[in-house]
């Protein structure tokens, strides 16, 4: 039973990353009509920025949680301003190809300097150790990742669905021209949205640094799984992305316990099943 609970926890942690990443993808897709293939590379950048902050600047984990997403977010906004914005009005697929190219560049540069092996990032002292819950041993850092991710996800949901800024954002997704007529600077909102989505990816990167080590290719496979998560959940709903992300992480964790050979493939198999039963995704509407 111990092993089962341990795998469930691993599943919840992976689910946190899937949720943060698919949430960002959904927000970006809503405003920019672009599937951000560079999301995995920016997730990796978040982890690397945290690593640099600690080893070069002596800035600890807690500040990195704040600073790394901001730095990567600004980097993302520069990408949006200099490149992505020129794709407005073109076929969606060009955005996918451009961001795929960006992912190759970013990952290639990091691989050149850091190879393919992992760099260690230690858990902050406060979160070291664990608690014995009686039925399992719970490492504090892992519990922290799940809880903190949940708070960030729900915070993002609240920002978009319940605040005035979020209302502007949703309105601009529906009809940008009309929203501009009301005097709202939609291009600036698009840039900020991209920065927000990218910042969420970088945050996931910082959270994962102490667990998965910091590796140049850490985002390469994750992004494809997140694509499958997005296909399963549909990109129409913020809450849908969050729930699907966590749920698939848990299912993956359970698979690792009951049938480990399929743990790499279970998300993709589920995607196929969902497509056969409900092609628009679980929360999606017909295009």
């Amino acid at each position, binding site marked *: 039973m111990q092993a089962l609970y341990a795998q469930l926890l691993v599943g919840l942690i992976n689910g946190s990353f899937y949720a943060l990443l698919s949430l960002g993808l959904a927000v970006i897709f809503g405003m920019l009509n672009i599937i951000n293939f560079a999301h995995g590379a920016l997730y990796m950048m978040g982890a690397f920025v945290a690593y640099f902050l600690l080893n070069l600047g002596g800035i600890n984990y807690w500040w990195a949680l704040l600073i790394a997403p901001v730095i990567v977010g600004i980097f993302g906004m520069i990408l949006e301003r200099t490149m992505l914005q020129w*794709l407005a*009005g073109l076929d969606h*697929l060009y955005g996918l190809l*451009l961001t*795929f190219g960006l992912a190759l560049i970013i990952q290639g540069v990091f691989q050149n300097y850091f190879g393919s092996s992992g760099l260690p990032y230690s858990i902050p002292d406060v979160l070291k150790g664990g608690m014995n819950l009686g039925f399992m041993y719970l490492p504090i850092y892992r519990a922290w990742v799940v809880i903190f991710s949940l708070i960030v996800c729900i915070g993002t949901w609240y920002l978009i669905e319940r605040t005035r800024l979020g209302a502007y954002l949703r309105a601009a997704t529906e009809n940008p021209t009309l929203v501009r007529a009301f005097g709202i600077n939609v291009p600036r909102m698009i840039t900020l949205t991209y920065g927000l989505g990218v910042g969420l990816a970088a945050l996931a990167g910082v959270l994962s640094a102490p667990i998965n080590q910091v590796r140049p290719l850490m985002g390469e496979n994750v992004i494809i799984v997140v694509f499958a998560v997005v296909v399963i959940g549909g990109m129409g709903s913020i809450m849908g992305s969050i729930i699907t992300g966590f749920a698939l992480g848990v299912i993956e964790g359970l698979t690792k316990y009951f049938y480990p050979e399929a743990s790499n*493939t279970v998300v993709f198999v589920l995607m196929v099943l969902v*497509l056969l039963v409900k092609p628009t995704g679980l929360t999606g509407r017909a295009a």
Partner: protein
Amino acid sequence: MTAMTDDSIPATSRAVHDEMIAFGVMTAMLAIVPLTGIYPFFVMQALCFALLACAFNLLIGYGGLLSFGHAMFLGTAGYVTAHALKVWGLSPELGILAGAAAAAALGVITGLVAIRRQGIYFAMITLALSQLLYFIYLQAPFTHGEDGIQGIPQGRLFGVFDLSKPTVLYYVVLAGFLGGFLLIYRTINSPFGEVLKSIRENEPRAVSLGYKTDQYKLLAYILSGTLAGLAGSLKVFVAQNASLTDVEVAMSGQIVLMTLVGGLGTVFGPVVGAFIIVAMQQYLSGLGQWVTVIQGAVFVVCVLTFRRGIIGEIAHFFRRSL
């Protein structure tokens, strides 16, 4: 929404005339390669990728479907052909047939799933499906995991042509490429191809005219996958191995890049693009990971400034169809 391909030049008799001349020039140039002293293995490898890119282009350029998982056909056919030759001891022609048949079967299965969504979702689904296959091949015993299948016997095609001789192998690969190329050319200029283009331009209208667009898309997908499989089977004879690199996402990305550089939706663009990218890898192989960075940069430059691709730009400038 602007379509991904430039179709301002209508298919007229002049267009067919231009394309025939270009085809004649291409065939003549490829036919004399063994006489010129150019390293034949480089050209053979490029020809396999050219066929692969042409097959991919049939989907994106004429059907508007971006498959981000075409490496799965290359890799599957490669593994099946390699296994058939080495373990079952089949003759080369049967090995190629088995590889292409496996790719066709894979096309039916994955096609039925993937065509349920359009546009961007189609790309993500094909990508996920190819990743699913990657993990299956990583664990399946017959692929030998990280090592791949090595030391594959080349044998005699139809019991006559000795494929271990580079010149013979070259003309066999060339014949395979030209056969696949002509089949694709015939397809895009057939009534079926016209319906496919109409689906690319406006699917709801094609539906309203009574076309069962899903069937057209599925058929195009299976044809494209089978020809990509043929390329994978031929590649086994050239490289004499079948490995996981042929199923990786990076390979699917390269197929997209070749077609994009040459020109999406042009007849000869994928061929030119394949030669450029294969040559680039050959000459830059000493640079290590910088090759990835350069490929990424080519992607970015192409998408931002050069969306018609090389052949597309030439055709547009001279107002010709190529």
